[in-house]
């Protein structure tokens, strides 16, 4: 079995759920894998914490929940703090680099940490909302969970009108990821 579990977490408004959708859709529709995605919100009505879990596999996926992700994408301090311990041994932790003090919080030598300046990169590209796609690029580069082409196709599905920007963000993310691979 090649079950891979990726958790993306942050605040509402950061595009967390969209990132999860693009990733899972890429695997399920454009990469010949099985995939599923779940999401959950904090107690706040809107705009509080939120997270999405993506599972990919070569085989049909039975149990749909994640307990120890292979990869955590943390887009907020809160998300990092809440979930970093759940990441499995030798798992990958990708976090928003501007949250500088993150690595200080209990670095576990069994996990690989990658700070990605997703917000800054997205800002450079002219849209801070594209930080999520930067992150996805990094995930692709650092985990290989889906093929890059599948991700690109998935972005076209999800953003039929604004795909260029998002594709650029994805590519920049992949570059950033590869630098740390």
């Amino acid at each position, binding site marked *: 079995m090649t079950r891979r579990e990726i958790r993306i977490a942050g*605040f509402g408004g*950061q595009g967390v759920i969209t990132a999860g959708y693009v990733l899972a859709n890429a695997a399920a529709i454009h990469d010949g894998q099985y995939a599923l995605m779940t999401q959950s919100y904090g107690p706040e009505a809107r*705009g509080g914490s939120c997270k999405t879990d993506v599972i990919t596999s070569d085989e049909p996926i039975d149990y749909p929940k994640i307990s120890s992700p292979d990869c955590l994408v943390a887009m*907020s*301090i*809160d998300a990092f703090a809440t979930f970093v311990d759940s990441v499995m041994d030798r798992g990958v932790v990708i976090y928003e680099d501007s949250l500088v003090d993150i690595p200080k919080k209990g670095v576990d030598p069994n996990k690989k940490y990658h700070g990605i300046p997703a917000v800054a990169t997205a800002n450079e590209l002219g849209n801070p909302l594209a930080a999520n796609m930067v992150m996805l690029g990094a995930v692709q580069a650092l985990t290989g969970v889906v093929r890059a082409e599948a991700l690109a196709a998935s972005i076209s599905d999800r953003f039929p009108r604004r795909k260029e920007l998002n594709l650029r963000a994805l590519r920049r993310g992949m570059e950033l990821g590869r630098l740390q691979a």
Partner: protein
Amino acid sequence: MTKVASTLAKQRIKLIKQLCKGCGYCIEFCPNKVFEKSEEITERGVTPPRIKDPDRCTLCGLCTRLCPDFALTIEEDEGDG
């Protein structure tokens, strides 16, 4: 609070940052433009206001009432007492 109450105790506007959700109402609606946008992002991912000009505050209390998050309150100013 253990201090003896003093007539010198002065009231001032106080921001409870943990409660702020960054809606910006205080900045927009304070008649005396006491607040401004800050650059800070809190742990909860929001940008609270900054009390730019406390001395312009007339203690009218509008911001405390318009703040949906109970994040602004008028308190005895202990530091300057």
